[in-house]
């Protein structure tokens, strides 16, 4: 991967970010009623609304307003939550760690297990193991996140009692240090599996079909003819190329994974951004909702950027081409 490509790709991010801001801005103005309600939330008094009108220059032409809006956002000012009276971005970032823990663990687990399942299925295509893996992933791929979560909760928390039913920590206890980590990990198991299930299915399906394509190609046949063992052929020659669409998939699905996290958080009362989002929508605390949207949209853009760079780095045809 050339540095020039990396710089060029980084610069491409700028118009995308601008576009995302523009979408937010347009929605504020397209929403029914006074745009001040969308900027300040539904429950302020007249004096407060007046301040917000001044701050965003709502008596100015639309273009000037857009400039003011973008300038505010660039300064990290995404407005003030009217329910808590605090800067929206602060309120959002307080909740990010819990969500990040859940999402990142699920992303890592699903990539690993998905690849493993895909390899296991492709190693002996159309055998019993392949049929089992393929059927399971087809089913999981169609199952809404909340149903997986509810079934896991029913079986492993309520029936078996192996895992806690909800939350991120045991509220009664005040664990510190390692016991705290173990406690959080114990609470993390069911939500992560529920969240990862659909991703595992998606990665497994793609890995399997990618591997089957690659295993039929000349370079793999050559490797086999030169006496390379099956494991070496699979990992060294086929998997590397079959990984490419998987990398793209993982980057492209980050948005959906975060969406799934919101739902899983609702099922297991996980204290992340999900609860904040839902309560803010219900209270029409739009600064929070917009701040969450921007943070998540930027995360998706960043994930796509990283994916693209990883793709370049993995694919020798592009790297040296």
């Amino acid at each position, binding site marked *: 991967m050339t540095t020039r490509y990396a710089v060029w790709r980084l610069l491409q991010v700028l118009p995308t970010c601008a576009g995302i801001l523009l979408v937010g801005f347009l*929605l504020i103005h*397209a929403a029914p009623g006074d745009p001040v309600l969308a900027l300040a939330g539904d429950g302020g008094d007249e004096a407060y609304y007046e301040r917000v009108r001044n701050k965003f220059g709502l008596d100015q032409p639309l273009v000037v307003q857009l400039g003011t809006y973008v300038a505010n956002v660039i300064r990290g000012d995404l407005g003030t939550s009217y329910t808590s009276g605090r800067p929206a971005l602060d309120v959002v970032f307080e909740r990010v760690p819990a969500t990040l823990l859940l999402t990142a663990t699920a992303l890592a687990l699903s990539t690993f297990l998905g690849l493993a399942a895909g390899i296991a299925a492709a190693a002996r295509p159309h055998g019993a193991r392949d049929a089992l893996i393929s059927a399971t992933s087809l089913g999981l791929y169609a199952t809404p996140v909340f149903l997986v979560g509810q079934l896991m909760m029913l079986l492993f928390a309520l029936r078996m009692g192996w895992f806690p039913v909800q939350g991120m920590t045991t509220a009664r206890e005040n664990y510190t240090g390692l016991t705290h980590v173990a406690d959080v990990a114990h609470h993390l198991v069911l939500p992560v599996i529920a969240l990862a299930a659909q991703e595992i299915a998606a990665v497994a399906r793609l890995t399997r079909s990618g591997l089957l394509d690659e295993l039929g190609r000349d370079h793999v046949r050559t490797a086999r003819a030169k006496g390379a063992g099956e494991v070496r052929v699979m990992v060294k020659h086929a998997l590397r190329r079959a990984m490419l669409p998987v990398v793209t998939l993982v980057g*492209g699905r980050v948005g959906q994974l975060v969406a799934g996290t919101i739902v899983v958080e609702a099922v297991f009362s996980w204290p992340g951004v999900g609860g904040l989002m839902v309560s803010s929508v219900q209270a029409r605390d739009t600064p929070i909702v917009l701040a969450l949207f921007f943070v998540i949209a930027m995360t998706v853009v960043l994930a796509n950027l990283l994916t693209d760079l990883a793709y370049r780095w993995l694919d020798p045809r592009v790297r040296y081409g």
Partner: protein
Amino acid sequence: MADVPVPELTGRPAHHQSWTAVLARPAGAIGAFLVLVVVVGGIIGPWVAPNDPFSVDGPSLAKPSLSFPMGTDALGRDAFSGVLHGLRTTLFVAGGVAAIVVVVGMSVGLAAGYRAGWLDQVLMRSTEFVQVLPRFFLAIVVIAMFGPGLRQLVLVLGLSSWPLLARVVRAETLSLREREFIEAARADGSSPLRIILRELLPNVVPSAVVVVGLLVAQVMLIEASLGFLGLGDPNVVSLGSLASEGQDFIRVAWWLAFFPGLAIVVAVLGLNLLADAVTGSLGGGR
């Protein structure tokens, strides 16, 4: 960046693709059956439903039985009737979104692929932009600002779901553009619009069907998730909101959460199987 795995489809002249070939595959037959069950259940179901989903008909939290195949909820309302009405909501959203996606995605894809040049550049940059927008959260922002409602939901999901279709249709069009039968039509003096509608469109339909099927399946999951979070239209029954109400009783009445979820599985699985079968019969067999 694709968010659903779409196999590469090779462009080829139309007319050889038939539904019998799709239905001859097990995946196609099962998929078609599941989709049929969902469509019939959602359209006819509410009329023939044994009970009104909002009326109290039986004992509270009754187990599934002959008179209440999916049990009853805490107020004694028939869960089966609720699922049938929920399916109708899902179908309404899915159908509306599909219509928008087809119109926008096909137009953008065909225009970009056939015209190339600056129009292609502009359309493809816009497509890439819309594709990075996180649909689920865009829908939530719209709900927060415009209030919950099916119309808003269909619009926002439709206007943010078309990029994948546009990209696939564009790729197909690009590969078809230089083929002999298109050249022949051009030599005949056919207008670009005529070539696009008469020659290109029929040939991109099979792969477009696959993409639309997969997109609709995703939209169903999104609609269900929004309903589950309590962000759906409060005036209609949705499968997601039923599942969420069921969550409160999961200790004592598993059926309340299970059957609405299962209905979504049936719908999404049916669409995915059908899409797989169409891909397979197009020669992308795996």
